[in-house]
């Protein structure tokens, strides 16, 4: 039996999973924690938590692939891959039939077009001006004094969603304040906020050929309002795995398992250690 792990160090949260190929591929442990200031420590803790859960020693894990923004900070990782490649792989495993991945995270939004084996065919990421979907929602929640978990369900109750023209994290604040001053309801404002982001995300995904099935991943996938708003503008249901948050880590773990099965040296991305410290 081969055992491997994937660790996805994101800008806000760190995710780790351990997988085995014992008669089929299985997730045997998963862990999630805030990344915080010490990226390396977060990666270690997530990985250790997984090992404990699965009752394993770290030495039992044959291969570790790191992904996410902090991937180069994972001292115990064997190699690194981008979360784009890992999301594609993970989505194709957790939601078979996936051809398009829409990922909305704290820092970035991206759309990935994937092939039958979960390989990346093409991908696009948000423009500078529309960075930070998660942050945008968090800001909106804060201005309105509502917790981040509540805004999605509330937005579903909008009757006449307001129009939000900006997707700028800074200016959305004054837009919201204006609507509050006009006496618009929180539901309608949140409905407007969600729709604005959904439209913006769709316009990003249109840079690819959007083929079904469409799978939504990333932290924002937990927001039912966002899922609904996106489905509305796309005009089609999306797949959302209960493990949506772990998809990057799952993809990384799947790659790690593949590496265990291969004997060849795949040095090209290891070259990174040689160049990344130089400047």
């Amino acid at each position, binding site marked *: 039996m081969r055992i491997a792990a994937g660790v996805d160090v994101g800008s806000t949260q760190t995710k780790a999973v351990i997988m085995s190929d014992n008669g089929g591929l299985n997730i045997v442990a998963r862990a999630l924690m805030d990344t915080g200031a010490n990226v390396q420590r977060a990666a270690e803790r997530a990985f250790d938590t997984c090992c404990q859960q699965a009752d394993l020693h770290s030495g039992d894990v044959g291969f570790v692939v790191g992904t996410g923004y902090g991937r180069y900070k994972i001292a115990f990782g064997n190699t690194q891959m981008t*979360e784009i490649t890992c999301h594609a792989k993970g989505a194709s495993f957790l939601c078979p039939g996936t051809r398009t991945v829409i990922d909305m995270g704290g820092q970035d939004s991206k759309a990935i077009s994937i092939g039958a084996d979960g390989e990346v065919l093409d991908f696009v990421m948000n423009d500078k001006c529309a960075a930070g979907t998660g942050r945008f929602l968090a800001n909106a929640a804060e201005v309105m004094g509502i917790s981040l978990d509540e805004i999605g369900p509330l937005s579903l109750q909008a009757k006449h969603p307001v129009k939000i023209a900006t997707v700028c994290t800074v200016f959305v604040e004054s837009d919201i304040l204006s609507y509050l001053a006009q006496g618009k309801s929180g539901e309608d404002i949140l409905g407007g906020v969600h729709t604005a982001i959904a439209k913006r995300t769709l316009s990003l995904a249109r840079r690819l050929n959007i083929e079904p099935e469409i799978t939504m991943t990333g932290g924002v996938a937990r927001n039912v309002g966002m899922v609904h708003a996106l489905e509305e503008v796309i005009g089609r249901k999306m797949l959302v795995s209960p493990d949506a948050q772990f998809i990057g880590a799952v993809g990384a773990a799947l790659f790690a398992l593949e590496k265990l099965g291969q004997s060849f040296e795949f040095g090209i991305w290891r*070259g*990174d250690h040689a160049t990344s410290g130089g400047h």
Partner: protein
Amino acid sequence: MSDKKEYRGSIHQQQKNLMLAWYDQLDRAANTGDPPTVSMMISGNCVELLEGFGAVPIYPEVNALQLAIRHQSLDPILAAEDLGYAADNCAYVKADIGCILKGITPTGGKLPTPTLILCNFVGCNTYLKWFEHTAKLQKAPLYVIDVPFMRADTPSRSDVEYVVKQLQETVKKLEQLTGRKFDHDRFRQAVECSSRSEELWSQIKHLARRSPSPFDAYFDAITLMGPLYVYRARPEGVEFFEAALAELQAKSDAGKGVYEQEHFRLVMEGPPPYPYFRTFRDMFAKWQACAVASTYSTVGGLWEFGFRHDPDKPFESVAMHMIAQNVTNRNFLQRYEQIRRYVEDWNADGVIIHFVKSCRLFSAGQGDMRDYFTKQLGVPTLYIESDLEDPRYFAEAQTKNRIDAFFEALEHAKATAPVRA
């Protein structure tokens, strides 16, 4: 800083010497008023004309990019923003204005107030504003050569006549300003030199069609571009390009490329992020990805498809160069075509589009370009954003992430795809 990747032959030292000699001349001009100097834009520049007066060009863009490479661009940018320039104005302009305000130069030497500010308008509306503003600031005379934009495949008779007339008006203007008579013979010789430099440069560009390519046609080409703009119309330029061609040819004949193994061949579109030039290059070096062609290296002139200045028709050929043979005055679809040709004839694996916020001429509509290459032609294309001068717009982690993901996908595609015919 040690450097493993890029080629360092004797041409790099020669290039450096030439450029320092140029700055020395400018310093002398600033101190003594001689030689006369003409401030011009790189795009479709008419440096040949200056030779007829023994005048030396000043290229504000070269100064701006030199500052950015040396991590000194932010101060002058901020000085210009204090004056009222917007965050979204071209940062080349802001850096240049800031330098004039604060007396900053890339070498620490002096830069003269130009004898003439000659705005060669080649499709870039920002050039007009830029030179208008520096003329106001420096109280220097301004003349505009209005170059008709390439709205058809070839320039019309009327387009060429219009530019030739303006070149002749420029000659009159310079005769007044310098008190010198225009030397027609020297002008013709300059055009002759240019045609030879261009032939050599074109041959260098075509060396990149070999696999492996002996130089990076984006990052290394930039080193060669300085002499191309300042010296191509002079014997020193011809000598330089002769040496460069010989050196790169020898390297290529020995089977050597930019990397030990050339893993990917790319076409680069858009100017580089000068404030992070080294960092950016390393992101490609890590994947042993070599640029085999680039549009940016054709800003000053597009020669690899056959155009040469013609000593038998000096004014007409200078006009033709300004109208039709530089990437900025060619229309957007002609740029698509240029890139497509590179992908095919230079045998590239993909296209990198680098959107720079400062330059709408280059960047506005590059999403459509991406659409064309990925959806219509099926060429893997990566779109990334930053800036050519303003260090505040480079997001290192995001950029690296996108580049890594692009190559991960390309690697997979290359591993599984049948070998290209």
